[in-house]
């Protein structure tokens, strides 16, 4: 594109030009994402930020792998953390052996071991887990999760009993002399693997097998008639998802240097379901959003309130009931508006509705927190830190204020909500931009 274009007859077919333009357009998102990952620790400089970003990275890979089952395969698993945990345990043991000199395994290659572990166990448990779809699949996944949780006390040497298995990434052999003693170094390693895993999972969803998995999700009978065995397709999806869950487990092992039976448990499986669904199961990038939001809420909120899981649960229920497409899905609903360059019109109504919504939410949160303080008598003086001020739950004033906030927000939404909805419909109307 740098040379001046020669006369049409002399110019060779400009396929390369088109391809070059295509690369930037097709893969621009990935390049931007890679750039963002590299730059992030410099942008966010607080001390506590890097550990949280590491946590997010692990959650992103885990959630993406879970979506291979739920979003792309239509299989709701309550035991996906089993493969995450097993991959992690295998990685931790491998790292310990490497530390003792028994194996050449530098830290950067650890997630591969985790992936292999996840794949092996998924291949094993998948033989009976994937024979049926739907509710039966979910129940089997639950049973496998409980089985593994209970087995952890029995297979002491692999699972380390109640204490779990610890490992030390500073003792492993070095690759290119790269050390991973500081959180920031670990961040770059995790960021690298997140990128690689995400690209791989995206590529998988684009392959024929990935597409057929979508078909089996939507209409298993018809897929069978077209010639694909739904059992086999589910099995392959399951193994692939287990592989990447294991990669996430390996990343976990190298970040936290400890694995316990809890990592395989129902809480971990429940968390990944929450984050994936909130983010949106219909879009590839949905779980990424969900993982980021969930990790952020979990780390930040838990410092301020003991009820962060309640808020996440309410958010989850709201998503299931009113926005089952999730956050990414909601964003995608605005695609026509984006293409028609009419997004700007939504800014106004959305800000108003959003602001009122926040007001109502603040009121609800305030009330819940105060109820909690009163009922549990956390503080004998009745003082509670809330929204950057301290309120006395024993006086009437805070209650009135928060109730007023809820009422104002709710009433305001009754007015602003339909306006936002109309604006949305207008903006998404197909056709040229209207003045």
């Amino acid at each position: 594109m740098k040379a001046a274009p020669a006369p049409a007859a002399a110019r060779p077919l400009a396929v390369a030009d088109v391809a070059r333009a295509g690369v930037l357009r097709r893969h621009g998102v990935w390049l931007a994402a890679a750039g963002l990952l590299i730059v992030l620790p410099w942008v966010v400089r607080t001390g506590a930020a890097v550990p949280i970003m590491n946590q997010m990275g692990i959650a992103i890979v885990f959630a993406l792998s879970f979506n291979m089952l739920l979003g792309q395969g239509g299989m709701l698993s309550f035991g996906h953390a089993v493969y995450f945990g097993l991959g992690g345990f295998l990685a931790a043991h491998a790292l310990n052996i490497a530390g003792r000199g028994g194996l050449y395994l530098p830290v950067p290659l650890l997630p591969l071991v985790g992936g292999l572990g996840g794949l092996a166990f998924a291949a094993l448990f998948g033989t009976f887990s994937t024979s049926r779809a739907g509710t039966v699949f979910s129940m089997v996944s639950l049973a496998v999760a409980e089985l593994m949780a209970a087995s952890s006390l029995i297979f002491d040497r692999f699972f380390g009993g109640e204490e779990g298995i610890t490992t030390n990434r500073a003792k492993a052999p070095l690759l290119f002399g790269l050390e991973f003693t500081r959180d920031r170094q670990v961040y770059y390693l995790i960021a690298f693997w997140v990128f690689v895993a995400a690209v791989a999972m995206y590529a998988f969803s684009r392959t024929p097998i990935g597409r057929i998995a979508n078909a089996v999700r939507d209409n298993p009978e018809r897929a069978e008639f077209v010639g694909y065995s739904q059992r086999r397709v589910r099995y392959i999806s399951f193994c692939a998802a287990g592989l990447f869950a294991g990669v996430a487990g390996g990343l976990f092992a190298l970040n936290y240097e400890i694995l316990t039976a809890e990592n395989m448990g129902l809480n971990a499986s429940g968390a990944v379901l929450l984050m994936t669904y909130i983010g949106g199961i219909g879009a590839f990038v949905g779980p990424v959003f969900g993982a980021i939001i969930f990790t952020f809420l979990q780390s930040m909120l838990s410092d301020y309130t003991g009820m962060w899981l309640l808020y996440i649960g309410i958010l989850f229920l709201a998503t299931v009931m009113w926005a089952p497409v999730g956050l990414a899905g909601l964003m995608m609903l605005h695609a026509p508006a984006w293409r028609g360059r009419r997004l700007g019109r939504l800014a106004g109504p959305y800000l108003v509705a959003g602001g009122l919504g926040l007001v109502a939410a603040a009121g609800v949160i305030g009330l819940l927190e105060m109820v909690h303080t009163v009922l549990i008598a956390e503080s004998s003086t009745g003082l509670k830190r809330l929204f950057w001020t301290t309120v006395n739950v024993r006086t009437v004033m805070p209650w009135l204020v928060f109730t007023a906030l809820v009422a104002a927000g709710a009433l305001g939404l009754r007015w602003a909500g339909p306006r936002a909805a109309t604006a949305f419909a207008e903006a998404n109307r197909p056709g040229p931009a209207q003045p």
Partner: protein
Amino acid sequence: MEQIVFFSILNGLVFGMLLFMLSSGLTLIFGMMGVLNFAHASFYMVGAYVAYTLGLRIGFWPALVLAPVLVGGLGALVERHGLRRVHRFGHVAELIFTFGVAIVIEEIVQLVWGRPAKSYQVPAALDFPLFHVFGSAFPAYKAFMLVVAVAMFVFIFLILTRTRAGLIIQASLTHPGMVAMLGHNVPRVFMIVFGIGCGLAALAGVIAGPVLGTFPGMAQVLGSVVFVVVVVGGLGSLSGAFVASLLIGVLQTFAVALNASVGNVLMGLGVPAGASAALHDIWKVTVAQVAPIMPYLLLVVVLMVRPAGLFGTRET
């Protein structure tokens, strides 16, 4: 030896009947609506907590009656305003919804009652040993649990088979469309069944709270076992749930009582002693330690061999 067998059977029956109280509601709801209510054990927990709080004000016996009614009402509300809205998105969405409800209920319980366990006591009227045999006592309260569970089974059975409402419910189970065309409000029937199912779970909570502890994790402890019972017994089959609950209850209680190691059992089954080196960890572990995983092993086996369950007629 006889003492262990005797008490294991008794304790196993009590635990099994408790499981039945929980699973009966779940299997009814599933049979009716095709929804596997993940939050079922959460209503069990709410029942225990509500009964505890009511009991402090009005006494155990009034609470025994009032708490299930209140929680059943709550369940009906959840169905009406939540589940019904999600129904059109399919079974997976319903399952996800009930999962969310379970989380929210657990958090709300912690919000209202706090995190430490509540000391929900057995009522004084029942706090005595019923009989002594083989040097050990059997508490009267456990006998009471058995009585309530059996009474509940008889009650449900009679309602379902002998009353008009029960017949409508049974018909809605298999032919909801036809029942609707005959003029019955099928969604309302569903709501009532859901409410009753939750009420039964709450009743189980009221009874079991003093014995199994009243704490925010109590739903998770029993939740999975209840799913096993329902699936093993057959989704939608009440008698299947009954048999499966007793089976699993007795099996687990017996397993805890056995000191034999897995190695001994395997040897008894003919596996050579030389295998002990290869299976080192499993060999030395006692059957008692393995007890918690037995229901899940059973579930996996049943799902592979006969996915409809022991008495069930449908798989999904």
